[in-house]
């Protein structure tokens, strides 16, 4: 199962060193803390729990950012290569930088997690999976979702953003990653879902 999905900024140019990594959207499926309490919890504890969750996601985003930077270094292509995109050219996710790493228990999640990430121009997309998840399926799902997000949120057009489009993002997530469940969808199923999606989102 997938524990969380996030979209964040990537800094691929060395000039962006000063810029912070910003989490633009995050969805955590379910909660890590599952202790049943006898009495009413103090508001401050609830705040702390929320804060902890936000910080965990930020930690993941930062790690993906640095992993992406290191990968860019090794590719040897100038960083500017990754930032120019002609408007009508369909983006090929085959060459998009991608990777995987493990988060040991306690750092930052309570248990072991595996992070699968994909970078498209200046945005990073990451899946935080449970250990021993089917990574092949997770990779396929991530690519599929990123393609849908790029298309329906029109992220490649000039001046378009991922913020203020949370409803579309949520609907796309609910189709392809409902409650964090990875689905074994063959191409026809995907097409049916995409048709349903276009119908929903065009309203």
């Amino acid at each position, binding site marked *: *199962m997938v524990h969380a999905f996030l979209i964040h900024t990537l800094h691929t140019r060395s000039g962006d060193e000063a810029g912070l990594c*910003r989490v*633009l*959207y*995050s969805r*955590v*499926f*379910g*909660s890590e803390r*599952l*202790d*049943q*309490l006898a009495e*009413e919890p103090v508001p401050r504890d*609830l*705040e702390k729990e*929320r*804060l902890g969750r936000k910080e965990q996601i930020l930690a993941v985003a930062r790690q993906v950012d640095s*992993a992406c930077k*290191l990968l860019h*270094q*090794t590719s*040897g292509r100038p960083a500017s290569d990754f930032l120019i995109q002609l408007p009508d050219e369909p983006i090929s996710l085959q060459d998009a930088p991608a990777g*995987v790493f*493990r988060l040991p228990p306690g750092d930052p999640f309570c248990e072991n997690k595996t992070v*699968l990430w994909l970078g498209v*121009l200046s*945005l990073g997309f990451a899946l935080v999976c*449970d250990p021993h998840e*089917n*990574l*092949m*399926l997770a*990779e*396929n799902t991530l690519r599929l979702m990123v393609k849908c997000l790029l298309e329906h949120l029109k*992220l*490649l057009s000039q001046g*378009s*953003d*991922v*913020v*203020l489009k*949370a*409803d579309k993002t*949520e*609907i796309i997530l609910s189709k392809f990653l*409902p*409650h*964090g*469940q990875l*689905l*074994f*969808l*063959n*191409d*026809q*199923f*995907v097409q*049916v879902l995409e048709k349903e999606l276009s119908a929903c989102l065009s*309203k």
Partner: protein
Amino acid sequence: MFTAGAESLLRQAREIQDEELRKFSSRITSLLQNNDLGNETIDCLQRLFLIVSVTKYGRKLDSKFVELLQTVMCLPRCPQQVQVLCAAILREMSPCSSLTLSCDEIQDAKLLSLVSSVLLAQGNKKAEVSAVGQRVVKVLEGRLPEGQSSRHLLPLLSKIISLSPASLTEDQTNLVNKRMVDWLRYASVQQGVAQPSGGFFSSPRTRQPGPITEVDGAVSTDFFTVLSIGQCYTEDQWLNVQTFSMLREWLQSYGSDGANSPHSDDKSEVDGSVMSMVSATSTSSRLLPPKERLREKAFEYCQRLIEQSNRRALKKPDGDLQKACLIEAITIMDIICRQDSSYVYRTLSCLKILHGRISGDLAYARALLPIAQFFLNHSETAAVDSEAIYKHLFTRIPAQLFHSPVLAFEFIQFCRDNVRFCTENLSIFRQSFPNLFKLLAWNSPALISEFVDLLPALLGADTAIEILHLLLDLPCLAAALDIQLRSASTPISERAAWDPAAKPASCLEAFRHPLYRSMFQYLLRVEAAPRDSPERLVPLRQLLASMADCPRVVQAADTVPVLLHLFFSVVVEFADGPLVNQLVLVLLERSEQLYEIPAFKADVHRVLSSQLVLLCKRHPSLVVELSKELLEFAGTIGNIRNKEDIFTYVVWAIGEYMSLACDERCTVEQINKVFEVLEAMLFEMVPLRPSASIPTCSPRVITVLMAMLTKLATRSQDLIPRMSLFLSKMRAFFQSPAMISVYSEDSEEILARATELMNLLKMPSVAQFVLTPSVEVASPRFHRDTNVSLPLAMKMATRLLERGTGFVPG
């Protein structure tokens, strides 16, 4: 993408004040209360979501407002966008104490799914997980109203059991087991009927749906699976896909017999005498309890998937799915066999055939890992020899697919997960460390922390020396792998014909050049080769130096110091005398032969010199045993400049451990000889005769040499007058204006040290005590030693008795 506009939006959202937020919320309240759920409301809700989610610290929303959001979300004809945004806002606020949502009365599957996502985000403080679980099962049990689909509920169920398997009772799991059997095995094999698009020209008679097909277009002749293709799908076919997607999690949580033991990773512990080779056949399966029946059907489904993965998919995404299905099917079969060992024989034969089919196909390499895991878990119980499978895995896969980051990651995870089994039972694991290092060399940032866990398992008395050499050559390995890849992608026609006598013009040419080919082959070997000598790599290292600024090579070089440190800390625990000697020799030899990256060399020298200290402390006698080599090293003037760290520590080691106390074989002649060599070195560095040039070297080297020479002198007392004379000359020299100008403040320190040592030498026995203390004195424990502690105790007693009450303050 991420524009400046977005950046400023985020900043505004972060900086919005509580008062403004209150006004905004009341605006939304009025819109919602007027049942205005149009574009303006949606826009406002989107902004509210941004405000609530953008800050780390939570925003306070009025509890009445929260209630309103909950009500609107549950309205029967609420537009999907509004519903989704309300749910998202409520989730962002979680855990929230003012939430009054409950799933108890909800009949609508879609709404239940949405409401549950908010409830699950609360963290189970009020047993939300269990409540949702109960509701979901209840809805699944009953008949859903027209137009609704259970397919929104299965992922929710899957989430619940992954969070807390104990939320469902046995009756409930049995019910779900029964349903899952139906969905998995008995889904329709006809294509679904497309919803008529309506319109004036559409024919009222819809076309008869055809049968489903396989991924290669052939008509399907067996039951429906995730690899079955149709133009349009029926409800039960959807449920088939969802059921398979959650099957692994379900079986792990509820499939095992006895008390709930979710996610147990133990190898199957089966009493061999109960092994049955004949598993339940289909005809009698109806008599099986639901759990066992599900197991049976799941097994059949997996077998069918394995068979379906043999077909050539017409579309690439289907091909990718085939691989994912294969991996999942093997993993599920592994779980089934752990729960019921009667399936083991059937699975073994099936997987052996599968392995034969895919072992030559690199595209399916990732499926080899779960196959190997299966054999690892079950071959013992089945007494089957799986050596060939492990050998193929360890020798072929890393060598051919090191450049695939996800495969490299999964491979290393496999090693880590099974490290105990691999070290105890698989000799091929330790022997294939060169292959494992290839994965690290290519993917260093991602895999370094995994390797820190794995390296200790690879180290043994038989592999230590070779691993040390390979570790020091990690950047070379990265460079060689790069050349190997580039060479493989250059077409044969482009590869220039070489003249064997001429030197290769580039690294790429050198790869095929007869002079260098065997060196490349040695570096890129797949198994340990202890008899080969790493010295043959010297020309190759020089050739590859041209790639020193290649980022991948630099990244590989960065991981070496930390691994070296780990290496020595592990090896020193089990190394015996001869091995330690070998290690020191390698250390001395390789300090010269390192890959040409200045920062890399400096770091490695630093680590090696500190490790030398460690080795000497463990085995002090190594200094005497290796005195010849150490002296040769210390006597080479070039070493002072190039390898100052190591030189300093070698000299220190000689001075410290070349004594009778450390090794009985130490003779006075040896000490005299060592003294002469070191004295000559000091002469070189500090020319006491006037000369045109004054060479400079680090003051630390000078002081260390002085101190060590003095130590040696105290052990062979004939040398004392010679040393005293030398020291007085040193003093005079360092008081001269020329030296002061060169060494500035350091010359004072050197002077002070020289004076100290001189004074010590005036009292030989004291000097010996100070400079070469015996073990008991070197680590004093005055309070334990009865002789030493008696005076102290008496003193203390006297004071107490004499002073009386006045001794205790206050």
